[in-house]
């Protein structure tokens, strides 16, 4: 730790409850209803009522293409008839969990006591049978032409329209620099599938072997179908509370040991210097300056897997292995298994349990620290967990510990 303890404000924040709506590939339910289901579940989990909620925080707010957001600040504020003293919601965050970090800072600053934080999606239903074109800006129209402006004009005209391709290029560079193989990368998807089979809310729960993975069709080399997460419908919520409210809570809360959200260098999908990595390495470096804990103290890791290679960047960026050594670390898959040295994405991640867009990771970190994981519970009473969100130029991470 290099930061003075009294400057680590996030330690005045705890996570007091988590909640989730139904999760499914395509639920065709009202998006705001899913959002509210998650919010009410989290409030109840904390032992609070809507009258206790005095802060709101969300990503990305009521914005983005069809399916991207199941409800913004105003939607939830009004639907729950809340009285709030502080709120924020937006898209320009350092990864989705930036919304949780904002909430930690708000309670730490004394602006409010209990912040309801959520992220909900309905991309599965929104895509329907129309594929991704149906959820792109301007999608669904056959008469107007979409025009790539801003930074997208340096990507779309060059036939690089999606994160699948950008991340695939990072993976290719990693393969080149460090000798990483598809067999090693594939362990992330195989591990997630194993864990999803133990999660009642998992979406893809049928067994998948490494051979199945290797035989899957290519999407954007070296990434195949199973390296890509699955669009879904569902909401996730967490309650961030101020540490002096602990006596009012239903159960011993999760303590926030440290947070970080750094991007050093150009904030860009194609202009970041080291594209065999990502700003995950910047956030990781900053996180460990704010705690005496070490990567070896972490009992389970929930790390963004919108594409499997993003998890590689987080594994290295968080210091769970040295830079460039994620391949050997993943080899055989034993280290990241439920009973391994670093159980990874224990709910099945986004690869097998759906693109809850970052918030699935903090939900699962809390579930594991509370010992509520059921069949997928990490053995031996895990005490320290990380939740990491974001890929490309966005990165946010929280280090959480058991409160009891």
């Amino acid at each position, binding site marked *: 730790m290099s930061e003075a303890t009294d400057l680590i404000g996030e330690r005045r924040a705890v996570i007091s409850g988590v909640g989730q709506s139904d999760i499914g590939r395509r639920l065709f339910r009202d998006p705001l209803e899913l959002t509210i289901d998650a919010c009410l579940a989290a409030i109840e989990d904390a032992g609070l009522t809507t009258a206790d909620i005095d802060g709101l925080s969300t990503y990305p707010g009521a914005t983005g293409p069809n399916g991207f957001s199941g409800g913004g600040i105003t939607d939830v504020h009004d639907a729950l008839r809340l009285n709030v003293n502080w709120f924020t919601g937006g898209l320009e965050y350092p990864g989705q969990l930036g919304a949780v970090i904002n909430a930690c800072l708000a309670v730490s600053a004394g602006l409010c006591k209990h912040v309801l934080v959520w992220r909900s999606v309905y991309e599965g239903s929104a895509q329907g049978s129309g594929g991704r074109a149906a959820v792109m800006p301007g999608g669904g129209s056959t008469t107007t032409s979409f025009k790539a402006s801003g930074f997208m004009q340096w990507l779309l005209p*060059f036939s690089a329209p999606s994160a699948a391709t950008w991340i695939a290029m990072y993976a290719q560079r990693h393969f*080149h620099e460090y000798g990483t193989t598809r067999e090693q990368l594939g362990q992330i998807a195989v591990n997630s599938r194993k864990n999803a089979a133990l999660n009642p809310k998992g979406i893809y729960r049928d067994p998948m072997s490494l051979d199945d993975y290797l035989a899957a069709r290519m999407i954007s080399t070296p990434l195949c179908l199973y390296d890509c997460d699955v669009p879904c419908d569902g909401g996730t919520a967490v309650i961030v509370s101020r540490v002096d409210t602990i006596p009012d809570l239903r159960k011993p809360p999760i303590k926030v040991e440290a947070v970080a959200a750094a991007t050093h260098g150009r904030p860009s999908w194609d202009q970041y210097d080291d594209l065999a990595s990502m700003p995950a390495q910047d956030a990781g470096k900053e996180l460990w300056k704010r705690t005496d804990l070490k990567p070896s103290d972490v009992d389970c890791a929930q790390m963004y897997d919108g594409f499997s290679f993003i998890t590689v960047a987080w594994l290295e960026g968080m210091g769970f292995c040295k830079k460039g050594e994620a391949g050997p670390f993943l080899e055989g898959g034993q280290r990241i298994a439920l009973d391994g040295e670093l159980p990874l994405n224990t709910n099945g991640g986004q690869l097998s349990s759906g693109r809850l867009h970052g918030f699935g990771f903090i939900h699962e970190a809390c579930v594991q620290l509370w010992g509520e994981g059921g069949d997928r519970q990490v053995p031996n009473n895990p005490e320290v967990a990380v939740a990491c969100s974001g890929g490309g130029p966005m990165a946010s991470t929280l280090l959480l510990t058991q409160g009891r």
Partner: protein
Amino acid sequence: MRFDLPSPDNDTQEFWDGARDHRLLIQRCGACGDAFFYPRPFCPKCWSEDVTTEEASGDAILYTWSVVHVNDLPPFHERVPYVAAIVDLVDGPRMMTNVVDCEHDDLAVGMALRVSYRELTPEVTVPVFVPA
């Protein structure tokens, strides 16, 4: 409906006009000498407004690539499989582009490339790269 056409603005119109004329344009700062991309009216290193547009040499090194097999957006779905690539121009800046006229098995990080041009519409041409 197509998703591949740029919407140039004041800062970027010159780049797209240049591409249509088969010239790959970058910008250089007169104060500090830095060459940069994407185009902007001031230098992102020293913030001088003494910025001139120049034609890049057209030589580049392949930084990384991906063979795209699936993309359901038009018109990319008609082009698969194709090679998306990030290249480092020998002049300095890095850019997203495509590698064309190259067997996929021959792609290699570090390979020398040379600029070429592909017309999307009568108004829009994109700089792409071929093996040097």
